[in-house]
């Protein structure tokens, strides 16, 4: 790890879904003011890892330190305080559909601060300006396009000026131009507000554009967690497959294949 303090420190994280092991011995760290990209194919466990980083699921074992605090050990009150320093933009935006865009962005301020109504409105409008959604505060989420929803969700995520920002699949389902704009926005947030940012994505181009460090997940394990340049230069065959977009060529065992097809029929 470099000289900067660690914003995120995960060590030996193991998680299960029912009896199935999803994440196996995950350890990595991300420094303050860095963009850490978590990359991996579908089913690699990156969404599960994000849920654990957000404290939404309880791990089987291991520790997750955010801003120096182990969230697997915190009391509800301590977690509540930590959440003021965390912002999350979900994949589908997760805007509250019963509220206007403005009310969505204002909600964290209303919950966490005792500011008066006008201050809250001005602060939320400032964040909507940042994401280029000025003037849209009275629309309902259903009236927005996909890219606008992601930007509104980002505005809600940063309204408390968090130290730590999580962004799930920023470019999924967006056209290249809008997706590039979001990448720019992420870099601006890092530089202007010195946020530590975690981005979960499977878009290579976007990942290398924004990442200071990249963690590559594959089938619940970490293949590599290093600087973007080191990951790009990696010779690991699975990482190369991901970077060069080569399909997986798993050898098929004929015996096992037959067994899978006829299981519970012959037995």
């Amino acid at each position, binding site marked *: 790890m470099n000289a900067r303090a660690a914003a995120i420190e995960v060590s030996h994280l193991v998680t299960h879904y029912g009896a199935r092991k999803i994440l196996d011995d995950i350890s990595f760290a991300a420094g303050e003011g860095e963009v850490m990209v978590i990359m991996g194919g579908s089913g690699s466990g990156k969404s599960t890892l994000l849920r654990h980083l957000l404290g939404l699921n309880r791990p089987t074992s291991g520790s997750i330190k955010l801003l120096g605090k182990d969230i697997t050990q915190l009391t509800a*009150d301590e977690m509540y305080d930590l*959440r*003021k320093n*965390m912002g*999350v933009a979900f994949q589908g935006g997760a805007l*509250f*559909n019963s509220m206007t865009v403005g009310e969505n962005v204002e909600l964290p301020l209303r919950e966490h601060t005792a500011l008066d109504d006008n201050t809250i409105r001005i602060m939320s409008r400032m964040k909507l300006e940042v994401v280029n959604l000025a003037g849209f505060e009275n629309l309902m989420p259903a009236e927005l396009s996909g890219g606008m929803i992601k930007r509104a969700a980002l505005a809600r995520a940063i309204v408390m000026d968090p130290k730590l920002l999580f962004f799930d699949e920023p470019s999924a389902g967006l056209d290249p131009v809008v997706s590039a704009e979001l990448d720019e926005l992420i870099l601006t947030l890092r530089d202007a507000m010195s946020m530590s940012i975690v981005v979960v994505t499977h878009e290579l181009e976007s990942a290398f554009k924004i990442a200071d460090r990249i963690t590559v997940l594959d089938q619940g394990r970490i293949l590599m967690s290093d600087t973007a340049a080191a990951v790009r230069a990696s010779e690991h065959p699975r990482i190369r497959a991901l970077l060069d977009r080569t399909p997986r060529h798993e050898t098929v065992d004929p015996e096992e294949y037959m067994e899978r097809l006829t299981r519970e029929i012959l037995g």
Partner: protein
Amino acid sequence: MSTESLRTFVEGVGRRTVLLVRETGYLAALLAEALYWLVVGRWHRQPVRAAAIFREAMGVGVQAIPIVGLASFATGMMLAIQGIHTLKAFGAEGQVVLGIALSVTREFAPLITGIFVAGRSGSAIAARIGTMQISQEIDALSVIGINPVRYLVSPILAAMLLTLPALTILADLMALFGGALYCAGELSLPMDVFFHRTFEAVEAGDVIQGVAKSVAFAVVVTLIGAANGFGVSAGAEGVGKATTRAVVLGCIGIILTDMVFTFLASR
């Protein structure tokens, strides 16, 4: 029956029993949590806001007045028709007032109110929470630091506990009015005489029994609606199923609670 199918049957019964116990436990935990936030939420920075309670009270209570009023009116009239028809055989039509008064206050008013609120609001609660579940809005609440049960369940529970007893009293009056109107036409019994006899026959305990039932129904409808909403995992179809389940189980829950309550109260 072969041993194989017998075993499958027994296994099925066992599995369903385990599910039932688990679901009952979940409902109990949900009730405990919703009440916990109602009582001590304000000291744990999770206040249940009065504005939210009143908003829900409008939806579950005030807006249910026309339908509950009409249904109770019709039920009162129906009781009068059936009562007079039955008692005619004994030449005791005059006793119909006693029958209507007691059955309405002790049984029909709370039951009709409960069933209609289960149909209107139980389904709405399940649909709202279920939709929020699949669009990650519940997760978004959690990461903002808003406890979903405090924000979504406690206000509805409080609103139900406030409005269902009030609706039940209204249903009492409307049903008695319906009965009185029919008796006035059929038996030429003046309305004031009908109500005079009613208030002679009915004791405070009868009305209290009905109101107490409605409190239990409020808990049943809220919990079953919310639990089914939180249980949604699979898309729009899941929301539809949860909604149906909330109404069916809500109505069954009300009738079973009523049976147990009546049994205990009349011993």
